[in-house]
């Protein structure tokens, strides 16, 4: 098999797909929270790569990406058959720092966020909790995998079709309350508005070692173009600076996230 060769590519659930690439070198280096930058070979009239979190890696060199079909690139990707070779760059970005034996991991995820954080659960020495939010029940993905990794999964949906009706951030306080005795370590990945709300909450609650994966439309993926920036706190007159999520992130400490404005 060639590096980047698609091993399988199938519908996971609703508009979500799972593609597996043969990529032993990337797998070997991957740590939770990193991403691959994929050149989608059959993409017409468009030339840029598309970034996807590495959802899983296997010992025999198979890398899993879980993606939602949202536009031209993911549409094209969803039609690529096994055997297609795609050029992959990665692993890119800074990973989450994994929970240690003392810590109780609580993952807060929205959208494809559960895919982006699964490796934390998989590699966690102890059990933990996944708070998973989505628009609707069809968007709640990978619950089984988290459960199999020993995580308790609590869900919320905007439309109430499964779990708590409302924002996933509304589940956070109860978890803190319930696990007062433990050394909770928060991890999060999801849509930016959710992450900003969560960062504010966690900053207020003093959970400064929480780690959030913030991203933005990417271009180079390696820190060269300054397309993907988000505001992080900085020691200058504005109180913030633009940090490149591909290189300085996507994982940032909750305390770094600039929530003003």
């Amino acid at each position, binding site marked *: 098999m060639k590096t980047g060769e698609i091993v399988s590519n199938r519908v996971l659930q609703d508009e979500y797909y799972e593609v597996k690439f043969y990529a032993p070198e990337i797998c070997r280096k991957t740590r939770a929270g990193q991403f691959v930058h994929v*050149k989608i070979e059959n993409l017409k*009239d*468009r*030339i*840029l*790569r598309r970034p996807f979190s590495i959802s899983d890696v296997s010992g025999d060199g198979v890398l899993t990406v879980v993606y939602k079909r949202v536009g031209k690139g993911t549409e094209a990707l969803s039609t690529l058959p096994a055997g297609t070779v795609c*050029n992959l*760059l990665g692993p890119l970005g800074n990973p989450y720092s994994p929970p240690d034996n003392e810590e109780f991991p609580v993952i807060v995820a929205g959208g494809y966020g559960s895919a982006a954080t699964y490796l934390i659960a998989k590699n966690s020495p102890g059990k933990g909790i996944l708070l998973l939010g989505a628009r609707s029940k069809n968007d709640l993905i990978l619950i089984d995998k988290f459960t199999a990794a020993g995580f308790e999964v609590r869900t919320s949906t905007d439309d109430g079709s499964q779990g708590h009706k409302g924002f996933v951030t509304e589940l956070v306080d109860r978890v803190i309350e319930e696990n007062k005795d433990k050394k909770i370590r928060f991890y999060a990945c999801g849509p930016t508005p959710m992450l900003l709300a969560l960062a504010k909450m966690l900053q207020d609650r003093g959970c400064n070692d929480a780690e959030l994966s913030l991203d*933005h*439309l990417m*271009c*180079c*993926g*390696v*820190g*060269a*173009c*300054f*397309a993907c*920036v*988000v505001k992080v706190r900085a020691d*200058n007159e*504005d109180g913030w*600076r*633009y940090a490149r999520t591909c*290189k300085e992130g996507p994982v940032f400490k909750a305390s770094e996230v600039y929530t003003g404005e």
Partner: protein
Amino acid sequence: MVDLTVDLGKFKIANPVMTASGTFGYGFEYKDYYDLRELGAVVVKGIAVKPSHGNPTPRVAEVAGGMLNAIGLQGPGVDKFLHGAEYMPFLRQSGATVIVNIWGKSIEEYCEVAARLDAESEGIAALEINISCPNVKEGGIAFGTDLKLAHKVVSEIRKVTSLPLITKLSPNVTCIADFARAVAAAGSDMVSLINTLTGMAINIETRRSYIANITGGLSGPAIKPVAVRMVYEVARAVEIPVIGMGGIMTGEDAVEFLLAGADAVAVGTAIFVDPYAPLKVIKGIQEYLERHGCKSVGEIVGAMEKP
């Protein structure tokens, strides 16, 4: 063996392929991909007097055959560039041929950054003056779209540095050859072109521009025909070396620019598609020269047949 070196008058480069400013960061970002000495030159992202946030986001949008960007020249400022480990100190150590792209909001700012770089010029092969910036003092008219301003900024910079000067021309003008002549007369040692074409793309669902800044610069294969045409016009208008760019993805694309009259080329947007693109372009040029029995790059510069 083909001789790939190119003599740009004031300095030589190992091969005709540079990186386009703003698409290769400060070189540091690609250090794990290959040895930067393999490149003809590393042209860094624009440096100004002070650190700058750049524009609000979103800053890029993909369009047919290319992309729009309005990064807005985010950068560390000249101090940090000269002394921050991942900037000039790293580049000096890398052994790469380094060209520093500079910008300012007024002639004074341009001169200040040029003078600062001149004062610590070790390892800097040349300055590339990005004149596509709006002159805030003159009410926002871009230096690069006003012949008198273009001449003025280059001649003032010329006074404060003895470093070779490359002026990077804007394609958003009626006659780019006039600008090439003006900056050559003002003391520019070379010209580079093209910068991005001003464009716009609207999200019809939100009815907002895909770019927070509303307009952005178009780059990539979509602009190649315009770029080749402008290089052709400029190469016939001035005697000084010409560095051509705009949509170069392959060695064949680069050869088109050389035939049109470019002495060297730069690869930009292609780097986002493939970090190894500049090396592939070098290889492609070499293969073309070998196949055509040429001994040096110079043999094909401007070698387009007259009709």
